[in-house]
């Protein structure tokens, strides 16, 4: 027997087993209808859960992209200050982020696909449940228990196949979402630990600190340079090193004098 045929027999066997359990088939109609409504709720919750996961991944993608931009800016700044080592470090970290990003993009696509599938499944199920409700009322109003049997079997086997399918789709979506939640949790932890800066505007990572130190250093240098210019005494610091040089001592003293005079 082919796979296709076997699958449909398995579905049908499940439906038959369920209906055989009922004493009055008409009661099965109401009971089944309740189960259908429950399943419909479950699918809708499933859609909402997948959407939540998708949004979480979107947020992480945005955070990582921001972090990537920041690292690129740092690399440029470092290179501008002649610190190729620091620029290389920033770019290396950025390429690490790129790998995480492409993984997140793949997760996002998968969640999006799951969300679309479940949304369509819930629409289909809703339409079928509505049909079933109408048919159920007709059957209950028109037929005796004995007469109803065939009609009930027809209505029931159509809907139960759908329920089996949708039930499995929800299970699969839940499994997938749970796997991705675990991975998303791991990335959130990475971001929180500072291994990936959360780009919240706190420049507290080591590259930022070095760049800050670099610019603080150059601030000192430029201040010194402007002071020297004011004094108009040329390159004093070099001469300060050699104390044996009388000229430099003299020069230092004259600097002191000038300051006192002001």
């Amino acid at each position, binding site marked *: 027997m082919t796979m296709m045929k076997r699958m449909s027999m398995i579905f049908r066997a499940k439906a038959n087993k369920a209906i055989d359990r009922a004493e009055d088939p008409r009661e099965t109609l109401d009971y089944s209808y309740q189960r259908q409504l429950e399943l419909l709720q479950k699918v809708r919750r499933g859609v909402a859960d997948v959407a939540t996961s998708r949004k979480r991944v979107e947020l992480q993608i945005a955070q990582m992209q921001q972090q990537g931009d920041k690292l690129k800016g740092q690399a440029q700044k470092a290179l501008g200050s002649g610190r190729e080592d620091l620029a290389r470090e920033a770019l290396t970290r950025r390429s690490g982020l790129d790998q995480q990003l492409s993984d997140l993009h793949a997760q996002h696509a998968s969640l999006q696909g799951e969300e679309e599938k479940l949304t369509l499944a819930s629409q289909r199920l809703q339409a079928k449940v509505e049909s079933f409700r109408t048919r159920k009322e007709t059957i209950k109003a028109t037929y005796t228990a004995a007469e109803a049997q065939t009609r009930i079997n027809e209505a029931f086997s159509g809907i139960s196949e759908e329920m089996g399918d949708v039930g*499995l789709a929800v299970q699969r979506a839940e499994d997938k979402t749970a796997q991705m939640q675990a991975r998303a949790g791991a990335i959130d932890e990475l971001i929180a630990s500072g291994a990936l800066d959360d780009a919240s505007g706190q420049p507290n990572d080591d590259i930022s600190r070095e760049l800050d130190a670099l610019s603080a250093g150059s601030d000192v240098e430029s201040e010194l340079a402007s002071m020297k210019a004011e004094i108009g005494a040329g390159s004093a610091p070099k001469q300060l090193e050699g104390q044996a040089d009388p000229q430099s001592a003299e020069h230092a003293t004259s600097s002191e004098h000038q300051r006192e005079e002001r």
Partner: protein
Amino acid sequence: MMIVRIMAEGQFEIDDEQLGRLNVLDRSVEAAIEQGDEPEFCSALEALLKAVRQEGRPVPDDALVDSDLILPPADASLEEVRGLLGDEGLIPDPI
């Protein structure tokens, strides 16, 4: 005329003349499952589902009909399909 369901996708009406072609494609899927050949299974399943989508007319959402043939979802793994075909089956009980 037959009703074919692709799980997680919906039902299709297919003319009987197509059955021969679908059976050939279905046998390739079965062979891949027997051999445990995952890549072969994926491409064979894809070909089978593609044929159903191409030749089939979608059954309206509100129709309550059971299917003559049922196919696994497009992203199913070989292991999952084995589970679906197993005695216990992965399919949840309808009620």
